[in-house]
């Protein structure tokens, strides 16, 4: 239907002076943008298929390619943006729910960028992290409420199971299915090398990754895919996924086309059959049901594993968190509305939930005001982009953060936000064999380790600057933050002062 024709969003620009017709672009583009028609004698391309993933740009040996935003435009309208218009065309043409991936791209405030970090001057020495010990080790888990001693007065270890981390960073849940095996293996290997944990997501755990169990969080989501006793026992912790920042209140749906041999085996569902995760756990309709699930998992694993409850950051997140902190969960993971996803209804992704910074600050304050902050550790997630975001999150009160998108970027993701097509040219969000192999876990592991090692260094630098040499002394240390350009209410929720105060 010509009425639905939309000029491509991007244009592929080829510098023919540099193009040597090596056809790497053609071979590397799963969207089939590039072509070498024999009779043309030169490369041609169909920009309408381009998702702007940069695979061709990155691999072009002569750097002959660039992708630019098309300047084709609708008549300017501050209200009816081109995006709004084209989305209507799409829906009018198909009747479908708009489906998007990765995190919320809309222009909401990013509070991390409106907070500044303190440093010591004169009255208190900053610490040089290159010389002095600078500790980022973190234990996650509930803290014992009372001290007990044996007859000889020796302390009895009443510490519930903990997650031990070399730094307060973990890889957040991304299921095998939504991302490739090689991406999973990269995360697992990097986690092991770094002394942190990665998260299986809701797709079960591939048998060949069981060996990374000590560095694995196994997730139990509403679909319960691949959940069985051995799975539960294989990880260092169990996460109950109640919600996800990118799509609060929405379940998951991995289309049958992505349920191939290995995925089918891992999820324990037949090949080609949709993997549907209902929006709620149908055995949890209330907080006391959550307690039931928490304890059923603890029973199944003999109280050896900390249980994480992951929720999306929503309006009354602090009250929910308070309930969770009393549910027997050891750790609460809060996922802000910028968190990524393999696929979510666009409207949900872009309009539901609240920023992690505010959610985190209010949860931490709420739990402290109720005196139950030590019942649980807090993991903050949802678009942590740098080590300074981490420092800020921890100063706001997080024990640890999850990174998802940042990890994927390290693995090569270029945020083209086309995961839902399953044609990820970087071998990450795909199950197509020829694409999956583009991510060599050996490279992936090194890149993840590099990223987090660098971040750890930066965290140490910032901590040193503040005169802090242990990460626990940063946790909730909000006096280390000042706001810029925030209104009173925002400052109050964040529990920080304005810069200059």
């Amino acid at each position, binding site marked *: 239907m010509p009425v639905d024709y939309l000029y491509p969003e991007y244009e592929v620009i080829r510098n023919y*002076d540099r193009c040597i017709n*090596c056809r*790497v672009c053609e071979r590397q583009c799963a969207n089939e943008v590039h072509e070498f028609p024999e009779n043309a004698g030169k490369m041609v391309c169909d920009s309408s298929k381009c998702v702007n993933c940069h695979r061709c740009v990155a*691999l072009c*040996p002569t750097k002959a390619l660039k992708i630019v935003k098309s300047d084709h435009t609708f008549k300017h309208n501050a209200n009816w943006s081109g995006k709004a218009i084209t989305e209507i065309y799409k829906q009018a043409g198909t009747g479908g729910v708009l489906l998007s991936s990765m995190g919320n791209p809309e222009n909401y405030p990013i509070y991390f960028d409106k907070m500044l970090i303190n440093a010591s001057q004169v009255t208190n020495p900053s610490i040089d992290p290159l010389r002095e010990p600078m500790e980022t080790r973190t234990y996650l888990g509930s803290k014992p409420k009372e001290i007990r001693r044996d007859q000889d007065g020796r302390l009895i270890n009443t510490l519930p199971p903990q997650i031990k981390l070399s730094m307060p960073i973990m890889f957040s849940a991304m299921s095998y299915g939504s991302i490739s095996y090689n991406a999973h293996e990269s995360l697992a290997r990097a986690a092991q090398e770094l002394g942190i944990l990665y998260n299986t997501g809701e797709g079960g755990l591939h048998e060949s990754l069981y060996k990374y169990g000590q560095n694995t969080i196994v997730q139990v989501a509403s679909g319960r895919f691949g959940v069985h006793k051995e799975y539960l026992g294989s990880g260092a912790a169990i996460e109950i996924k109640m919600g996800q920042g990118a799509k609060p209140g929405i379940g998951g749906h991995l289309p049958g086309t992505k349920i191939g041999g290995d995925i089918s085996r891992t999820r324990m569902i037949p090949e080609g059959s949709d993997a549907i995760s209902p929006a709620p756990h149908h055995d949890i309709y209330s907080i006391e049901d959550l307690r039931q699930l928490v304890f059923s998992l603890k029973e199944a694993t003999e109280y050896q594993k900390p249980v994480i409850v992951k929720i999306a950051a929503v309006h009354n997140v602090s009250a929910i968190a308070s309930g969770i902190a009393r549910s027997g969960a050891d750790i609460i993971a809060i996922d802000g509305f910028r968190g990524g996803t393999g696929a979510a209804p666009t409207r949900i992704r872009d309009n539901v939930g609240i920023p992690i910074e505010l959610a985190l600050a209010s949860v931490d304050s709420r739990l402290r005001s109720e005196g139950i902050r030590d019942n649980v550790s807090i993991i903050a997630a949802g678009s942590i982009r740098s080590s300074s975001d981490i420092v800020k999150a921890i100063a706001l009160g997080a024990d640890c953060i999850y990174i998802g998108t940042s990890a994927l970027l390290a693995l090569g993701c270029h945020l083209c936000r086309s995961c839902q097509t399953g044609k990820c040219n970087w071998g990450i969000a795909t199950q197509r064999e020829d694409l999956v*192999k583009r991510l060599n876990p*050996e490279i992936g592991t090194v890149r993840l380790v590099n990223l987090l090692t660098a971040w750890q260094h930066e965290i140490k630098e910032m901590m040193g600057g503040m005169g802090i040499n242990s990460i626990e002394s940063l946790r909730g240390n909000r006096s280390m933050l000042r706001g810029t350009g925030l209104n009173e209410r925002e400052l109050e929720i964040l529990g920080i002062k304005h810069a200059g105060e």
Partner: protein
Amino acid sequence: MKRVYVNEEWCLGCHLCEYYCAFAQTNENDIARALKDKVIKPGIRVEEHNGICFAVSCRHCEEPLCAKSCITGALTVVSGIVSVDTEKCIGCYTCILNCPYGAISPSEKGAILKCQLCSDNTHGSPACVKGCPNKAIVFEERGL
């Protein structure tokens, strides 16, 4: 000795190794100028079939049949690298007939062409390895 090894599992069939190899041989500093409108003659070549792909280059055998059968003495082993003296080589292709890996090819100049691990150009270490985007080609010590 360090050799070029191919991890077939990770070969994407992108053929970049061939282009980087061809570029390395030119000793030019701009790849576009070096290879523009040229039919490349790389020392490493990708085989592809039914979704399987991998690159093949000289194995630098310890008992190199090519050098042993060379009728001119152009092929010799220099510090482990099976090297060809292109001045001496007359392009009889006895080496091609003998190389079990198909790693030697005729060159345009009438001599043969083969991987010499970039010991003969300004790259210092194999350009195919540096150019491989997926670490499918590595340059390392592995035993043979």
